[in-house]
C-alpha cells in the first residue's frame, strides 16, 4: 500500500477543522501517518477541546504525531517553562491582551503535555519541524534566499524539510548548485568544489490547508479540508 504523510499545522484550537481533516483522511487511499506541526493552540479560540482530542484520539481517528509550534513556545515561555524568559516578543508585537487571551485559551493541565512535545521529527531523510532547525519562529517561504534554505537543510542533515511557520503551501526544490572554496592556512592552500545535492523545502500550510506527501514518489498534494471532490476534478492540489 502507498505510504502517505498528512502534514497539518496552525489549527489554533479549531476542533471542527481537525475533524474535517480526519474525515478527509479516512477517504484518502494509502497507509497514512498524521503529523501535526505545531500551533495546535492560539489566542483566538478556547483550545481545550482540541488538545483533549489530540491527547485522547477517538477510536476511529488517525493517531496524531504532534510537535510544538510558535504559539506553544509562547505559552511555555509565559508560563515559566523556559527559565526566567517570558513571551516578550509576543507582548511587544501583539500586546498584553493577546498574551492574556492565549493563557486563557489553554487549561493549565495541558501545559506539561505541551512542554513534553518534541521540537521536530526526522523521518527517513526528511525533517518535520514548525519553523526550522534554527528557530521555531523561522518563517521560511518561497521568497527566502536559497542559501538560507540550504543552511536550514544542512543544519538538520536532511534532504527535505517540511515547515509550517509561514502558513504557506509550497514545494521548492534546490535542483543544482556549485560553490568553490579555497582555504589558505599555515599548511598551504586547499581547494574544494562543493555541489548542492537535490534537496527541497515544503511549506505544509495551516488550518484547513494541509499537505499530503507521497513518500515513495516524493510528490506533494496541497489540500483544503472538505474539498476532496474539487481536487479530483483538477487533478492538482489547490494552490494558495
Amino acid at each position, binding site marked *: 500500500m502507498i505510504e502517505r504523510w498528512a502534514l497539518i499545522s496552525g489549527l489554533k484550537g479549531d476542533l471542527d477543522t481537525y475533524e474535517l481533516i480526519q474525515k478527509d483522511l479516512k477517504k484518502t487511499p494509502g497507509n497514512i501517518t498524521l503529523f501535526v506541526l505545531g500551533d495546535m493552540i492560539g489566542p483566538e479560540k478556547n483550545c481545550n477541546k482540541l488538545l483533549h482530542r489530540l491527547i485522547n484520539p477517538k477510536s476511529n481517528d488517525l493517531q496524531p504525531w504532534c510537535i510544538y509550534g510558535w504559539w506553544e513556545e509562547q505559552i511555555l515561555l509565559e508560563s515559566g517553562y523556559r527559565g526566567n524568559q517570558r513571551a516578550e516578543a509576543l507582548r511587544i508585537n501583539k500586546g498584553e491582551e493577546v498574551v492574556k487571551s492565549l493563557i486563557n485559551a489553554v487549561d493549565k493541565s495541558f501545559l506539561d503535555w505541551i512542554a513534553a512535545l518534541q521540537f521536530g521529527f526526522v523521518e527517513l531523510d526528511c525533517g518535520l519541524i514548525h519553523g526550522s532547525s*534554527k528557530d521555531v519562529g523561522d518563517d521560511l517561504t*518561497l521568497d527566502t*534566499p*536559497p*542559501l*538560507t534554505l*540550504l*543552511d536550514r537543510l*544542512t*543544519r538538520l542533515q536532511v534532504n527535505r524539510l517540511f515547515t509550517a511557520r509561514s502558513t504557506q503551501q*509550497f*514545494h*521548492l*526544490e*534546490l*535542483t*543544482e*548548485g*556549485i*560553490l*568553490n*572554496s*579555497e*582555504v*589558505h*592556512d*599555515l*599548511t598551504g592552500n*586547499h581547494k*574544494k568544489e*562543493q555541489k*548542492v545535492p537535490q534537496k*527541497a523545502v515544503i511549506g505544509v500550510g495551516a488550518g484547513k490547508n494541509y499537505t499530503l506527501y507521497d513518500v515513495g514518489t516524493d*510528490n*506533494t*498534494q*496541497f489540500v483544503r479540508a472538505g474539498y476532496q471532490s474539487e481536487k479530483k476534478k483538477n487533478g*492538482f*492540489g*489547490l*494552490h494558495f
Partner: protein
Amino acid sequence: MNQAVISCLHANLPAVEAVLKDIELQGITNITCLGDLVGYGPQPNEVIELIKEKKIATCQGCWDEDVVDGLDACDCSYPSQIAERRGHFAHQWTTEKLTKENKDFLANLPYSIRKDKCLFVHGSPNSQHEYLLPDMDAFAALERVENAKAEILFCGHTHQPYIRELANGSIAVKVKNSGSKDIQKKEMNLPMRRIVNAGSVGEPRHGGTKATYVVYNDITNDVKIREVEYDIELTCKAIINAGLPPIFAWRLKNGFEFAERAEDASHVCER
C-alpha cells in the same frame, strides 16, 4: 592600510605582549580584538587591563560571556567529561580572580563590530559559541557571511587561523507543484565572500606553539597570517603557580591539543 585582527588571548600575558610588539614593529595602529580575553590562562586581569590601556576595539568572546553570565555553553562544547571538568575549573578560577571592574568591562563588550564591508565577531554572527571551522560546509559558511551583510567576516574561537574564499557559486531552484503547468525555475549567482579566522594569541591550536593573528590590508584586500614567538616557559610557570590544571601548560608547550576542540563543528548551542 594595514590593520591587525587578534583573537583568543586567553589570559596569556607574555603572548599578548609579544603580538602587540610584532604589530607595533610593522607600524600598524588599527587593531581589532575578537574576544576571549580570559579563560585557561593565568593573567586575566593583566590582559584585560592591557587591552583597555591600548584602547583596542574588542568584541565579547565565549569565555568573556560565560564569566559574566555564568556557564551557559552546553556540554557539547567539550569532547570529554574530563575536558569539561577542566574547563569548568578554569571558569571558576577566572571568575574568582577577576576584579569587579574587569568583569563589568567584559559584560559591556559588543557581540560584533562592523567597519564598512567587514564584520568582526568571536564565533559566528549567530553565536559566540558557534565554530566556523575551515572545512565547514561551504554553502553554510557563505550563508553566515551573507546573512550578516558583510563581504569579509572576521572570526576566532576555533584557535586555527585561516583565510577562506567562497567564490563562483550558484544555486538553481524550481517550484514544484505550483498549480500551473509551467514549472517555475530560477538560477542565481552567489557573491564572492571571505571568512578570515584570526587564530589565537594565547592558546594556539594550529599545531605549532607560536601565537597567531592576521594582518588585513583594506586597500589590496590581502590577508596574511602572522606567527609570533613568545616566552612560553613564563606562561607555563604562571599556570602551575596559579594552581590551574597542568595540562593547560603542557599543551601550550607542545603546541598540539584537541582537549577543548568542538567535535561537531555544525553544532549550534540552543540557548
